[in-house]
């Protein structure tokens, strides 16, 4: 299949020091839903901004829909739709007026534009609010209008930068469903950035894990997860009401344990290796008079993959012990989780 995005050694340095995107090279196939995963500050949005011609690369090249992002920026803009993290809508204008404005900026002919707006409003079940002011809408309704705003000119490629950020579960589900339909029914290639792992897992054909501006891993969600489970890995959730630091140290020192993450004061997430890991952990807890409320073997998530590869959670601010001295390992990070 022909790549719709070709990136080679793309780098963005801010202020001569901060390498937000560091020599990134990859391709995106036409018709894919391609996820870019990483925590805040990993470089996802900077990468998207460069691909959308909103930020000039420091070095490297990228072609979007066959056009160079620097020398053919205007051509690139004609072929892409952008749903940015902040909504591109004007509260004092109606849904129709907002869409009309951006349709006109894309030079969509008058006779086509009105019909297209009505079709898209139908698609997101917003036709009855066609002439209502956007300022009166809920966040979920606004986001639906925001997504179709990016689709007015029927782009080949849709960039979705954190499209469900701040939405309630129902609205998030609707947006994900819409993205899936657009991809399946209209063949639109979607580049999705998110730090919600379940969202990326559910939608993406392939995922690039971004860490400190670099691609840490790039594969399908299933293959990425195999990097843990497929190589004799095991993830355990353990609850010990009388958990002590001594007990945590004991578990960490086990040969079959590779990592221990404190979920809270009594709960641990343990990354182990080999079939004996679960027995070793139980024996260690019992030898130190620990009372096990429960212990279970859990399926790895993309966040686990990210944590294993980078030493840092993509979804929260969790950092594996010993990998980042500035952060404390605590599961409930500032950004919370949605699981």
């Amino acid at each position, binding site marked *: 299949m022909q790549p719709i995005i070709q990136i080679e050694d793309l780098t963005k340095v801010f202020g001569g020091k901060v390498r937000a995107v560091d020599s990134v090279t990859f391709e995106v196939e036409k018709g894919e839903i391609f996820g870019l995963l990483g925590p805040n500050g990993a470089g996802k949005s900077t990468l998207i901004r460069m691909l959308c011609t909103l930020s000039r690369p420091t070095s490297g090249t990228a072609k979007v829909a066959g056009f160079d992002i620097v020398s053919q920026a205007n051509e690139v*803009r004609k072929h*892409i739709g952008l749903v*940015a993290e902040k909504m591109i*809508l004007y509260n004092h*204008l109606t849904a129709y007026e907002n869409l009309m404005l*951006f349709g006109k*900026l894309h030079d969509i002919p008058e006779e086509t534009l009105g019909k297209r707006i009505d079709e898209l409003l139908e698609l997101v079940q917003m036709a009855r609010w066609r002439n209502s002011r956007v300022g009166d809408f809920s966040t979920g309704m606004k986001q639906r209008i925001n997504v179709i705003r990016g689709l007015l000119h029927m782009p080949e490629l849709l960039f979705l930068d954190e499209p469900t950020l701040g939405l309630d579960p129902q609205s998030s589900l609707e947006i994900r469903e819409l993205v899936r339909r657009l991809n399946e029914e209209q063949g639109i290639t979607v580049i999705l950035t998110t730090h919600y792992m379940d969202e990326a897992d559910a939608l993406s054909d392939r995922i690039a894990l971004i860490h400190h501006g670099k691609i840490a891993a790039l594969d399908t969600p299933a293959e990425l997860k195999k990097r843990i489970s497929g190589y004799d890995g095991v993830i355990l959730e353990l609850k010990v009401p009388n958990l002590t630091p001594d007990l945590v140290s004991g578990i960490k020192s086990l040969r079959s344990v590779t990592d221990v993450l404190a979920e809270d004061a009594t709960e641990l997430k343990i990354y182990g290796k080999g079939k004996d890991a679960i027995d070793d952990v139980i024996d260690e807890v019992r030898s130190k008079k620990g009372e096990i409320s429960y212990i279970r073997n859990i399926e790895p998530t993309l966040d686990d993959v990210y944590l294993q590869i980078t030493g840092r959670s993509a979804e929260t601010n969790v950092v594996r012990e010993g990998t980042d001295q500035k952060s404390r390992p605590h599961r409930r990070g500032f950004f919370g989780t949605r699981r």
Partner: protein
Amino acid sequence: MGIKQELSHTLWITWKDLMELWRSRMRLVMMILMPLIMMTMMSFIFPSSQNVLSNIPIAVVNNDLGPQGAVFLSTLSNMDAAKGLITFKSALSLEDARDMILRGEALGAIVIPENFSGALTTHLYTANITVLTDDSNPQISQALSQILTQVIDGMSLMQAAVNVYPYAMQVHVNPIAIVVPYSAKAEGVVSGGGSYIEFMIPGLLMMNVITSMMTGLPRAIAYEKDTGTLVGFLASPISRVSIIAGKALGHIIRGLIQAGVSLALAIVLFGITIHGDIMLVVLVLFLGVYSFVGLGITLTSVAEDEETAAMIMMTLTMPMIFLSGVFFPIQMMPDFMQTIAHWLPFTYAIDAMRRIMIFGVALSSVATDILVLVAFGTVMLIVAIPAFEKAMTR
């Protein structure tokens, strides 16, 4: 991209801005209220020197040993009755009058000396009337001192004319011509002109439209940058010039509407007459705004956010307004301030507007002003467009 397309993009961006303004009734009301409040306030804060002072409490000390002091004060009182300038307050002595000023009971004092009648009857010496003023209030003190000395000098001349009357009659000449051999009469070049409000209105008009551009445009762009909506324009296949032009045109129209409201208020409320061509007034307003579009855009490119943009604009516009002669004639400023004023395009915009509105001059008479505005505006736009482009793709 064709000019027609660019123009279409520009107009749609302008349409968006104006629709937002139209839908926000509070902004619309404030747009009309602002010039009304501004003009009313300014016209009363800086009224003309003739009507600034009324019912000024003045302490009067009559130390004259003869009757002439009382006659003088009575004449003064009669002269003032029509204007109501002074409220006379009796004081016992010079010290008493000084205390009254210190206590804030009087703003000045007139002290008739002991030898006043003697001087008038013997003509051997001049009777020196002392005028005291409140030094803590320099502007009132200066105006009062000027008015009182003028009144007293006038009365002195009248007395002189009375004194020389018998001699004048003998040689058949006019006694006034003897004591006042010549006098000056100042006249303006435009009949009926010359009031402070007439001086100020052209400056206020220019100030309204230029500050609307200088503060409004960078704030509007910075606001769209902060809220993320600017990305919608930047990611669309439109030229950066269209974005700048669209936003600027919206603010130019807003500025011109505001100027129109100001002008209508000035005519209706203050009886201002526009002596020049109204189209020339609109042209100069437009050029005034045009000259600041580039500066506004350049500063937008420098400012990181809306608050920074507002602070930069305030820092620049406030001194510019005062230095360019909106409220005070530039000629009243110290030399170095006048030099600075001549480097400000705002000064030229106001000068052109004032000469068109007050003198009714033709385009050729303000050609230099217009040239400066066009040149400054064009140079700033040449700087602004790449700066904006660079700032938006950081």
